[in-house]
């Protein structure tokens, strides 16, 4: 057995089903050994998308996504994907080939110091110097990636280590790291403090971030909210924690969020921030959420608490565990019940009166109405992957989550995320419908993956909201630079119908809302890849 065989055995032991990647000489021993395994390899068309696809798979399956690329440019190309996963705390193990150990540091062909380069975008990284360490390193890497605050781990493996003979393979059953023991259970004394504050509060609210979904804590959070009738808002990464039309859910907060959600958060007297970074897009003025209310910040990462805002009660631990513990605490609702009901009535009023009024141009597809129609028609547990740009903001605002998932690159805002992530999501669960919704800018950042979809038979459905502009930047230039548009015109884009034909994909075009119903029905009918082009008013705005 050689090092590369050992790596494959580790992946098998971890239950890995798919490896997304791109070979090169320095990772060839790995790709040779994987031929003897049942693990399927997906040849992605550019390395960045290998990490995005692994991210989509991880988010739907709850397992660690795996990608494997070669040294040098292969490794540097994957960095944006790793950084995207890091910003959204998605568990990945990224294997990079490396030049021969003895040549490291001599700037030979396709050598890059990848562990150095990704340091600030990974939870941890390894450079393997002895093939006998492979089992321990992989065991640790999978453990680190998918526990505590999840995140990407990179393992750099020089080619000679992949080829080195290993006497015997033993995959460790346990991880023993003195420096890594994440807190999962919440501190009971802190939980009791929270309960006391809730019993005093009149206008409590829960703001759920991506952490609530990552810890699989959605059900526990919902149970808590329903039991005590506490309203919920979410950040972009928290979308889907409650069904969109749940009576206790009031939408996404932030500068692109729902006015009623922001108002609800501002007027609350107790804010339970759950698995959220309190970053600028969700909370532009952190002082405002501490001034007139009790702020409780719950996060599995202690460093998040107090980073952007100082809470009154910090609560370190896994969202799921804490909510389960809190639900058991039996809040004394004698005093709070009436106040809570009044608060909910007020919020229902805001939901009615503060709806955003759009005045769509009838000559084009109205993205807002289209997205709501699409989400109502798609399968109940379908997965909707939004890209980055105006399409993302419209998706956040108008997509209706029922039992499905909403995936997007929230932290990093990486354009081109949706198509590869949707492929990963589809492979994670082939029975679910997966739709990627992107703009014409983000589509062109990942359109090479149409080949991957075709080659590996991954039936992802793609919507392109086409307005011939980098719309989000155009909108920014409209407001900030008085319509002085600079480098946002997307003329020269390909004919999508011809492009779809070139990849053997079905194609549909929707030019206005007249035929929206039947076009969406046709788009969703069969479980196969199809491209739907929607013509959007180039001057349409998210605000």
């Amino acid at each position, binding site marked *: 057995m050689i090092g590369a065989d050992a790596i494959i055995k580790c992946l098998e032991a971890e239950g890995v089903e798919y490896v997304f990647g791109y070979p090169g000489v320095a990772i060839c021993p790995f790709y040779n050994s994987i031929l003897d395994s049942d693990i399927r390899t997906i040849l992605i068309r550019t390395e960045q998308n290998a990490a995005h696809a692994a991210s989509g798979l991880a988010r739907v399956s709850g397992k660690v996504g795996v990608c494997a690329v070669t040294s040098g440019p292969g490794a540097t190309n994957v960095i944006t994907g790793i950084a995207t996963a890091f910003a959204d705390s998605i568990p990945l193990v990224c294997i990079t080939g490396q030049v021969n150990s003895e040549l490291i540091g001599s700037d030979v062909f396709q050598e890059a110091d990848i*562990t150095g380069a990704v340091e600030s975008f990974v939870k*941890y990284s390894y450079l393997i110097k002895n093939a006998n360490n492979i089992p321990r390193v992989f065991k640790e890497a999978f453990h680190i990636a998918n526990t505590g605050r999840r995140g990407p781990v990179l393992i750099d493996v020089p080619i000679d280590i992949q080829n080195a003979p290993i006497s015997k393979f033993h995959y460790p059953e346990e991880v023993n790291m003195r*420096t*890594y023991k994440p807190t999962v259970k919440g501190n009971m004394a802190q939980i009791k403090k929270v309960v006391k504050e809730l019993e005093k509060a009149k206008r409590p609210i829960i703001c759920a971030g991506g952490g609530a979904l990552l810890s699989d804590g959605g059900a526990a959070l919902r149970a808590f909210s329903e039991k005590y009738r506490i309203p919920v808002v979410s950040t972009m990464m928290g979308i889907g924690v409650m069904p969109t039309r749940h009576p206790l859910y009031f939408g996404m907060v932030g500068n692109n969020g729902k006015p009623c959600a922001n108002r609800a958060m501002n007027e609350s007297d107790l804010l339970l921030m759950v698995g959220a970074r309190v970053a600028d897009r969700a909370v532009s003025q952190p002082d405002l959420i501490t001034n007139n209310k009790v702020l409780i910040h719950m996060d599995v990462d*202690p*460093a998040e608490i107090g980073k952007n805002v100082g809470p009154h009660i910090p609560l370190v631990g896994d969202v799921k565990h804490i909510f389960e513990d809190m639900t058991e605490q039996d809040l004394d609702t004698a005093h709070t019940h009436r106040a809570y009901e009044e608060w909910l009535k007020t919020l229902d009023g805001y939901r009615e009166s503060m709806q955003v009024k759009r005045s769509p141009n009838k000559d084009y597809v109205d993205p807002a109405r289209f997205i709501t129609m699409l989400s109502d028609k798609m399968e109940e547990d379908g997965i909707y992957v939004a890209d980055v740009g105006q399409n993302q903001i419209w998706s956040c605002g108008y997509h209706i989550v029922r039992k499905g998932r909403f995936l997007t690159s929230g932290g990093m805002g990486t354009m081109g995320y949706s198509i590869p992530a949707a492929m990963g999501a589809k492979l994670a669960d082939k029975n679910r419908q997966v739709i990627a919704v992107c703009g014409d800018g983000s589509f062109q950042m990942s359109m090479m993956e149409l080949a991957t979809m075709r080659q590996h038979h991954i039936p992802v459905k793609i919507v392109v909201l086409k307005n011939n502009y980098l719309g989000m930047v155009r909108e920014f230039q409209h407001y900030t630079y008085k319509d002085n548009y600079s480098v946002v015109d997307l003329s020269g884009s390909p004919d999508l119908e011809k492009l779809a034909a070139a990849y053997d994909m079905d194609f549909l075009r929707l030019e206005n809302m007249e035929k929206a119903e039947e076009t969406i029905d046709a788009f969703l009918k069969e479980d196969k890849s199809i491209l739907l082009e929607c013509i959007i008013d180039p001057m349409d705005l998210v605000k």
Partner: protein
Amino acid sequence: MKRIYSVSVENRSGVLCKVAGLFSRRCFNIDSLAVGETDDPEVSCMTIVSSGDERTIEQIEKQLNKKLDVIKVKTFGESESISRELMLIKVKYNRGNRRDIMENCDIMKAQIVDMSKNMMIIQICDVPERIQLFIKMLRTISIVEVARTGTLALQKCRDAE
């Protein structure tokens, strides 16, 4: 506000870089940094002196704790610590100022550890402020080179420990 962090880390290659990178990445100051092996050859101790407001100081501790090569972070203020710095300073001398230099060394408890016809190396081990003062005293003479360890510090002994 000055703050001292005594950080036990795994004695592995790249760890210094990761810790230093964390400071630059998050715009935390490093006033000084000293690293050395401890009694356990698998563990190194980094003494980092930093400054910032309360929130920064807390964040530094939390971010250090988050690093997977960090075993333990102890943090304390200057008044709670015993701190020392070692400096080697090379100066040019002549017959006219030799006595002055030696007197200064006497006052500051510094030692001359190497000498040639017109150069000498002086060693001083003291608290950082007095090292600074010593440099000031020698500035009137010509200083050739200075090498400092950076602050080493341990928390003061407490009976409870």
